């Protein structure tokens, strides 16, 4: 990230693996009938996390949980304020979410605005029985009354810092780091 440098690594590849197994177990514990489940990964890194959780559930339960991809750009509340037209990425939910327990998966929970947008978008797709939120990292500083059901790791940060989740699939390595402003 421009103008930032790595400060501390808070999760190693091993940590991430363990956390994801735990989150998968927590999801299943709450909804033992895995046929009711549907996973929705939020673009971009939420999608990769969702894919990994799907694989873990398959490993544990033997069931293929449907997986959808959600891009929330068009539902952002700052779409015209942030300036240059943000890229719209793919949204792909090729199953009905009606009466499903939809598990929304994202990498970092921060202000809560992304999740607000995601919830609005989900409602435009149908009427799930329930929506649960799973995040790898919760770093605090919520601006909306939103809370995750399952959290990989709570990481207290300063507001000036930045939390970056790096995943093998696009970043070539698995880790979570706190970034701070570089002096340069």
């Amino acid at each position, binding site marked *: 990230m421009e103008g930032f440098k790595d400060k501390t690594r808070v999760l190693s590849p091993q940590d991430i693996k363990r956390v994801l197994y735990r989150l998968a177990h927590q999801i299943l514990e709450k909804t033992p009938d895995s046929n009711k489940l549907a996973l929705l990964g939020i673009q971009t890194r939420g999608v990769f996390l969702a894919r990994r959780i799907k694989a873990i559930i398959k490993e544990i339960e033997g069931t293929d949980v449907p997986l959808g991809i959600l891009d929330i*750009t068009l539902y952002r509340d700052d779409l015209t304020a942030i300036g240059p037209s943000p890229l719209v990425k793919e949204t792909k939910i090729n199953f009905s979410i009606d009466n499903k327990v939809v598990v929304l998966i994202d990498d970092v929970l921060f202000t809560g605005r992304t999740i607000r947008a995601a919830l609005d978008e989900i409602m435009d797709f149908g009427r799930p029985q329930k929506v649960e939120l799973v995040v790898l990292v919760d770093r605090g500083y919520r601006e909306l009354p939103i809370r995750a059901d399952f959290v990989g790791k709570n990481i207290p940060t300063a507001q000036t810092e930045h939390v970056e989740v790096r995943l093998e699939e696009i970043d070539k390595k698995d880790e979570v780091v706190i970034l701070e402003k570089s002096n340069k």
Partner: protein
Amino acid sequence: MWDKKHIIAIKELERRHIEAIFNLARNFKELSQREIKKTPALRGKTVVNLFFENSTRTRTSFELAAKRLSADVLNFSASMSSLSKGESIVDTIKNLESYHPDIIVARVGFSASMRTFMRYTDASIINAGDGANEHPTQALLDMFTVEEAKGTLESLKVLIVGDIRHSRVARSNIFGFQKFSSSIRVCGPTTLVPYEFHKIGVEVFDDLDKALDDVDVIIMLRIQRERQESSFFPSLREYVERFSLTPGRIKKAKKGCLIMHPGPINWDIEISSALKERLHPFILHQAGNGLAVRMAVLYLAGTRRKEL
């Protein structure tokens, strides 16, 4: 990054702009397949459809596109307007400007006249057809449809048939396909292919049988009856004889050649009705892509940087 306030002409776009529009359009196509086909992206924005020439297809397509993005849409057409009471086009724009529109989708009869609009409004202008100059969203949807079907826009042989002289669709498509190194042929009566058109870098034909040889894409243009009345060709019978796409002729094109038409089609004039069953579904699919492409263009104009 998107850096255009207005979308006036394909001439003025670069390849990367066209690609950005197509990337968006693909995602908007997905949106149109949802149960609820609307997103709040342009909530609170005002889109004015300002049409000084009749149009049903383009206007309704823009209207629906804007509504799908939750913008407020105001339709203003010449017939209902104060133009008939003697108000000038400029005064009309100034009047609309008092509503602070964010986007004006405009169609006028004068070629290359969109700049006049820019002088009197802060809104983004989207050209929905200016005289015989350009109709950028039509070309974008044509190209999008070709890319979807062929997987590429590179190095294709594209043939445009009909009234090239008066066609903004032809001009926009020529400039568009050329940006992807496709080669363009135009074919029509010698009176309807403009003087010096070869200088634009197209191959000019007056014999459809020859022009069809080995082409990947054919765009058939609509023939307007008034062209016959002003003696550009003596009769529809002669036009059809030489320029109508028939089952026999179509064999000369490459196998799997795409056949498109901006609509509305005069069956048995531009295209033989014997081909209707075979060709109409794809032409309707082409029209359907117009919605996604226009949503993409509206999204880019509506979420542009303020300083543009």
